[in-house]
Structure formats: C-alpha cells, structure tokens
C-alpha cells in the first residue's frame, strides 16, 4: 500500500517535476494574522439600504432582513432612524439628569449607571413607520426596504424602574419626558404605563457598548413600543403629570384616521411577521427543496404561533419556530418546502400570547383607512412566478 503510493508519487513527480504533483494537492499559503477588531469575510456583502433624502441626518437605513440568520441583527446592520444625525459623545462627559416630580433629583455619570444592578435581554426594535408604504400599497421591491426598519439585539442596562425608585417618583406623576443629546434634542412623552416594567436604560448592545447610531452611550429601551419613543443618547428624564405633545408624537408617529382624527400615543407594536425567503427581489433557481423562513414579533409578549400559506391565504399550515423564544423579541420561523415550479402566492401570519392574530392589509385598511402611515402590521404576500422571480402581490 505504502510502496504503491510512493511509486505513484515518484512517477507523477518525474512527469511534472513539482511539489504539487508530489502531494496531489495545492500548497497552502498562510492566512491573515490576528486582528484587533474583526471584519466579516470579503465574500459577505449585505449592507443597509438608505432612503434617498436631501437631509440624510433626518433619514433612515434598513436592515437586510433576508440576509440575516437566527434572531440577532448584527450591530453594524441594525436599522437607523435619526432626526438630526448621530452625535459623537464622549461617555466620560455624558450625564443623565432625572428631575421634575421626584423626591431626589439625580445627575448620573455613565460610571454611576453601570455600577447599578443590570440585566441583559433580547428585544426587537421597530420604527413606528416600518412598512408604512404598505398602507397605500406603494410597495418597495424587497423585504429590506419594506420591512427593514426592524432589528433585534441583546441589550444590557439598568431597569428604568430602579432609577425612578432611586429618584423617588412623587404621587400624581404620570409621564416621563425623555430627551436625547442629539442636535434636535429629540423629546418624547412616555406614559408611566405597566409596560415600563420591562424598560431599561441601556448601555450595551450585543455584548459591546451601544453603537453610536443606537444611542451611545445611553438610550431608553421600552421593549414592545415603537422605536421613536426609545430615545437615544438619553440625557434627561423629566417626571411630570402631563404629556408635552411634542412634535414627534403629534405631527409625526400619530395615526390619522379616515374621520380626520389622529390616534396619539399608539405606542405598542402589534403582532407582525414576514417571510424573508423567498421574498421580493429574489429568484429561485428552479423547482426543488427550499427552506421557507422569516421573522415574527409582537410588542405584546410572546409570539405563540406562525402559520404559512402557499395559496394566497386560502389555507394555512403551522411553521416551526426556533426555541427558545423571548417576549418582545424576534422569533425565527422555518418550514421545508418543495417548489413544483408553478406560480404560488405565499405569506406568514403571526399570533401572539393575547390571542391577537396578524390581520390582512384589507382588514387594517377597513379599520384605519389608507392614510394612517404608521404601525402597519398586515400580512405580507409574496408571489413566486413560474420563472422563480419573487415580487409583491399588492400594488405590484
């Protein structure tokens, strides 16, 4: 055995006269050395898409949902939504002031905050305007641009409640006015509602300090509520008895109804899901086996069920959800699927622990009209054509 191999090798070596021939394989060159800060493979290219605007400081960029695995969004790909750019804050100089209707007004350094008992939890964050184009069926071509103002991270911070108890909230207080340290000093009124039991003053994201575009060094995190209220670069919490009716809760992020009235402080995000494979802009190379997958989430606790339809909503089958599931976090769902090459209209539908079932776009429009702009959570239909090309169904 050994002798034969050597004889073969000798023969080959004689013919080619090279080391390659002698071993029957390419010699290997060394890889790159250690690096202080990791980069992804140069073969991996997904990036955030940015909405065209003349004022990119008041813009948004969307997560490439179809290119992420599992439930955690890489911090570099977390969606962004700012109203006055990303400030560059030295954490040593950052302060949080808690004042107003409290027994003990407080000013805290980041060190003061990090010394307090903290927790780490996985939560999604979604812009109240995510998939807003769907209201009027002005659909974007792909899931990134239509659903990508949603991401999910592990956040680390101090429970809001702990710091409010440190300050001693006075009887009669009903609201917090949260203010950021960005150029526009973003302000939102936050009701002292039961959901704040889950709220954090977050300084960590996916194992490292918050990214600047997510509020470094400190943000408010109110899991399950629309992103805008979770004020980034948090520098002030004014405890008070009235909401301030700030621009970003009146002019923006309110839901205009057909009767001309607008719903205000519509903060919780209702159950929502979307199929990310196959999804708009993708092409299936041909019939055969695929794994249909996507993401589901709800601001109301746990996603308890995700169903898929392959006949435009006539019938539904239950998808498998990855475990463990976390409340107010992305849930990854999957189902093996053999495509026979015929056109198909598919979609996902999420149910949450309150029994709420994700509605169709028609049901939402019947309830709220087409001009409410925010908080769209309708079922998203994708059409797979006989050519394998995946496109929008509504508004296509």
């Amino acid at each position, binding site marked *: 055995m050994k002798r034969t191999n050597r004889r073969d090798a000798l023969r080959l070596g004689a013919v080619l006269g090279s080391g390659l021939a002698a071993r029957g394989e390419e010699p290997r060159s060394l890889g790159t050395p250690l690096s202080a800060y990791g980069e992804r493979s140069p073969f991996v290219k997904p990036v955030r898409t940015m909405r065209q605007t003349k004022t990119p400081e008041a813009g948004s960029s969307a997560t490439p949902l179809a290119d992420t695995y599992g439930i955690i969004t890489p911090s570099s790909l977390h969606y962004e939504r700012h109203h*006055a750019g990303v400030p560059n804050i030295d954490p040593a100089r950052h302060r949080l002031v808690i004042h107003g209707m409290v027994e003990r007004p407080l000013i805290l350094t980041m060190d003061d905050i990090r010394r307090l008992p903290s927790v780490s939890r996985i939560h999604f964050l979604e812009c109240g305007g995510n998939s807003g184009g769907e209201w009027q069926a002005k659909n974007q071509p792909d899931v990134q641009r239509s659903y990508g103002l949603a991401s999910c991270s592990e956040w680390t911070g101090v429970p809001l409640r702990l710091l409010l108890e440190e300050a001693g909230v006075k009887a009669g207080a009903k609201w917090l006015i949260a203010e950021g340290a960005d150029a526009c000093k973003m302000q939102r009124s936050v009701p002292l509602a039961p959901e704040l039991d889950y709220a954090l003053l977050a300084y960590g994201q996916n194992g490292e300090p918050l990214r600047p575009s997510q509020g470094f060094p400190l943000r408010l995190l109110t899991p399950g509520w629309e992103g805008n209220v979770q004020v980034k670069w948090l520098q002030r919490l004014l405890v008070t008895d009235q909401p301030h009716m700030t*621009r970003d809760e*009146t002019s923006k992020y309110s839901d205009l109804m057909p009767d001309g009235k607008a719903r205000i*402080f*519509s903060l919780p995000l209702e159950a929502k899901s979307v199929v990310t494979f196959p999804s708009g802009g993708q092409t299936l190379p041909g019939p055969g086996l695929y794994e249909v997958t996507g993401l589901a989430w709800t601001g109301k606790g746990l996603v308890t069920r995700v169903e898929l339809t392959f006949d435009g909503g006539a019938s539904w089958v239950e998808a498998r959800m990855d475990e463990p599931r976390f409340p107010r976090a992305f849930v990854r769902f999957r189902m093996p699927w053999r495509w026979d090459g015929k056109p198909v209209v598919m979609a996902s539908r999420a149910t949450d622990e309150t029994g709420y079932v994700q509605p169709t776009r028609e049901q939402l429009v019947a309830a709220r009209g087409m001009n409410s702009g925010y908080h769209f959570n309708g079922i998203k239909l994708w059409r797979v054509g006989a050519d394998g090309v995946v496109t929008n169904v509504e508004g296509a």
Partner: protein
Amino acid sequence: MWKVLSAALLFSVVLGAQSAKYGAGRAPSAEEIRALGPTVGPDGRGLPPGSGTAKQGREVFAARCARCHGDKALGDVGPALVGGKGSLATAKPVKTVGSFWPYATSVWDYVNRAMPFDKPGSLTHSEVYSAVAFLLHLNGIAGETEVMDAKSLARVRMPNRDGFVPDGRPDVKR
C-alpha cells in the same frame, strides 16, 4: 384626552420612596438642570421669558428658515409649514403646523430644540417666539402684531386642538 390614557396607569414603581436604595449619582445643581434648556408643556409650563410678533418673525423666517422651507413656508428641503386646513379627513391629507398641530407651545418647543435644522440652538428665545408668531400668522391663527410670549402662546387655540384621540387598538374586525 391624555387623562383618559392616564387613568389606566399601573406602572409598578414604588411611589415617593423615602430613601434611595443604592444612593446612585448626586443631586444636580440648578445650573446643571438649566443648562439642558427648557422643557415645554402644552399648558405653557416651562416656556422661558422673551417675546416676538409675526412682523418680527417675517425677518427671522427670511433669514433663517426660508432657505429650506421656502419663502412662503410651502416646503422645499424641509416640509410645508402652512396649508392643509380642512384636508385631514380627505383622501389626500396635508399635515402642517396650521392644519394638524394641536398646540402652539409644541411649535415653540420644536423650533427651539430642533430648528434651524442645520444649526439648532442658534436662535434667541425671542427669535423663536417671533418665528412661531410668523408661522401662526401665515396659517391665519394669529394677527401680524400680536405679541407671542409665555402667556399668550399658551392661550393660542390651534384649529386641530381636538383632533387627537387615544389609541383605539386592537381595532381589526375579523
């Protein structure tokens, strides 16, 4: 309206705890709070001294705002700040300061915090009163020489004051 919302509050924070458990941080000085700038409630609470009229505001607007919002505030790089009255219940609603915003105090607060977009914090408080007075005048809400200050601004009744209602969800009928 927000009173309806507040009625259901149950947040489990311990009210008025007599002592701090951890003793985190320290008490801020009055100057440290003041340095953060005003916070403005819809009842006018927090509005600082200063005043201005639409007449004065016309100049502030031309010099500091028109570049982005247009000479007549009809919108350009920045959104339209006038018009849209009566459009909210139509198929093409136009939401502006005049047609949509429920409180004039919020206009002061927003312009003071966030405008001019590329240099927020560069106006004096009186220039902000003037710019707001001008926007109210353009929208037919205030006279040209009406003085806007902490008291009068809080008294302004915006056309859409009663246009906001509590969240009605879950609202989908199956």
